[in-house]
């Protein structure tokens, strides 16, 4: 069992927790992920490592409540335990030789982008961060990004906070103005990463995308997280869990990844409602007791 030692609510549906997992804390690097199970009957879900404290033996993850499992996870308070917590999985983000980087994060993907930005900042690279959210009430980690970025641009789709528009707008402006990045790294919803990639393509700028497909084991056994890369040598099948999660954006078949990501959409929505009802019933029972 793995103890939740700290918990912070970033937004009503976005939560940061630190979990006691000394072996993982010792090894995890930015870009890697863990898999956890909330309880004995739980599913395995991958979450990206948002930070580590090796001395304390803790690993930080940030998650958005989107389904049954994250709903249950959100109910775990400081001192509670998670059933399983395994990692670090996947490969760390490649930082070698990169002196000037642009990090483009969207929504809760910013939680994944943040440690990557920190790492580039730590190694002395010039960091431009563009972070985008649907609206003001979903903005997270702004101060944290500010602390590790040479330049920070915050966007909201509806203009309720800072600049209005999506993240491709300022990226295009920067590239049009002649900015040259050694690497653009984008992390967020698939549709956003697809358009960030298309924007970069107009300028022939190198781009890395961080993929987070559905996984089961996460260790290279089940093949659920496979994606197709269109490479010079033809189409190849890669596994996000052991070959990724970072890939060359130009090669990723985003449309396929988007379709595969929707496989259990209906089931998950039903399951979420089911779990919410159970929680509500339990709360009512407690209130009446």
């Amino acid at each position, binding site marked *: 069992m793995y103890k939740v030692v700290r918990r912070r609510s970033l937004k009503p549906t976005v939560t940061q927790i630190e979990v006691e997992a000394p*072996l*993982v804390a010792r*090894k995890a690097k930015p870009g890697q992920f863990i898999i956890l*199970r909330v309880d004995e*009957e*739980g*599913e*395995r879900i991958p979450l990206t490592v948002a930070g580590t404290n090796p001395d304390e033996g803790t690993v930080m993850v940030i998650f958005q409540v989107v389904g*049954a*499992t994250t709903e249950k996870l959100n109910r775990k308070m400081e001192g509670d335990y998670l*059933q*399983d*917590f*395994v*990692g*670090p*999985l996947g490969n760390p983000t490649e930082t070698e030789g990169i002196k000037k980087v642009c990090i483009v994060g969207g929504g809760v993907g910013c939680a994944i982008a943040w440690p990557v930005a920190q790492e580039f900042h730590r190694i002395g690279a010039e960091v431009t961060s563009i972070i985008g959210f649907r609206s003001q009430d979903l903005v997270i980690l702004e101060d944290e990004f500010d602390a590790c970025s040479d330049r920070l641009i915050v966007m909201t789709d509806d203009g309720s906070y800072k600049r209005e528009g999506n993240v491709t707008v300022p990226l295009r402006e920067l590239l049009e103005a002649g900015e040259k990045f050694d690497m653009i790294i984008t992390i967020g919803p698939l549709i956003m990463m697809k358009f960030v990639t298309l924007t970069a393509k107009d300028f022939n700028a190198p781009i890395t995308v961080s993929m987070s497909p559905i996984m*089961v*084991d996460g*260790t*290279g*056994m*089940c*093949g*659920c997280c*496979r*994606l*197709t890369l269109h490479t010079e040598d033809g*189409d190849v*099948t890669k*596994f996000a869990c*052991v070959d990724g999660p970072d890939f060359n954006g130009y090669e990723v*078949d985003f449309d*396929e990844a988007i*379709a*595969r990501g*929707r*496989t*259990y*959409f*209906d*089931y*998950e929505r039903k*399951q979420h409602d*089911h779990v919410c009802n159970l929680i509500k019933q339990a709360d009512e029972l407690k209130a009446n007791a």
Partner: protein
Amino acid sequence: MAIDPKKHEMPSQDPQVRAHNFNEVALGYEEATALAEAARCLNCKNQPCVAGCPVNVHIPEFIAKIKEGDFEAAYQIIASTSSLPAVCGRVCPQETQCEQLCTLGKKFEPVGIGRLERFVADWHNDQEALKANPPQSNGHKVAIVGSGPAGLTCAGDLARKGYKVTIFEALHTPGGVLVYGIPEFRLPKAIVAREVEGLKDLGVDVETNVVIGKTLTIDEIFDMGYEAVFVGSGAGLPSFMHIPGESLRGVYSANEYLTRSNLMKAFRDDNPDTPIMKGGKVAVVGGGNVAMDAARTALRLGAEHVYIVYRRSMEELPARAEEVEHAKEEGIDFRLLNNPVEVLGYQNPDDPRDPKNGTVRGLRCIKMELGEPDASGRRRPVPIEGSEFDLDVDAVVIAIGTSPNPLIKNTTEGLEVNKKGGIVVDEGGLTSREGIYAGGDAVTGAATVISAMGAGKVAAASIDEYLQNK
């Protein structure tokens, strides 16, 4: 007394009933049946059956104890060479191993050795009081990577010799393919858990949620004071056919399909957290035991119709005879000499937001005929031009094998692998690195539970010899 020419039949659930539940298919012998079957053993001097067993169970001796009614003694004889009697009694392909060499089998049906082994193991497991005690420690520490059949066997053999053994398992439940791969109806998970508990009674530690090559490297394991490491990390990444449509929603690797159902309990009706597609029509591609398991799982998940699509004929089909027989009885539709060429997807031309877009609607196959023998000695299947046809299905499960997981190779300097990615070992299981041994699917690619156990056993003997002479 005349010898009964036939094996005593294994009582099983009715095919019509069992096709819709996940309870165990074969029900096991009653005591009287076991005694009667044991009486068929000739107890011949040369014991050909023992040579057919990869872990050399002393077969005539344990059967002799059954005849005497001393089932615990029979169990102890099996357990002295096999760490997983209740598992082997269920999933070993006895017909090509011990039973194939049975003297009685020359004239009649061979002795039902596997069925007797299962009877003895289940009898023992029903006796609460009969727990093993850890043997005297010899002060040496050995680490095992992976808790599948190879790792459990290696761990058991070493623990019995007094080694302090730790098993590192990547998943949250120990058992490897015995829990994520082989379905409940063929090998109940409670039986696997029981066998793992038996090892813990011998003093074996099991550390779940540790991925070797990620959480720890093999070199770090040595730094922790372990003197030898056995790698039994299993088969690894699933192979795909590289045909169009393979990434459509509803195309599964057998590993994913079975893991969702077995390990993650997606088969249950009470709102499991892990989803799986249920119902509809399902095509399973492949002809091995894994393909049979996937097809029979699909049926139990409520599929209206399940096909096995295999490119060779029944003669080359590699699955265990009993599994094929069971699958046929349950109504699995075998489409032999058929090879898939494309998975067909649904796309609504008028509505790009149709939720069914990108799902499977069929499997296009081509008919095959058998040509000259190929490198494997089996006749090579050759496509018959222009014979394509479509099977109307909603899901496709691909069970055509796996390739070794690269995590350990990539993080262990000096560990030699062959061109398929399998770890290279000598006949004693030693790899190219001193103190590192390997066995099972990580070495051979996908094979059987019992061959993995045999490899675990060989490696345990080598590790013992290495550490005693060090």
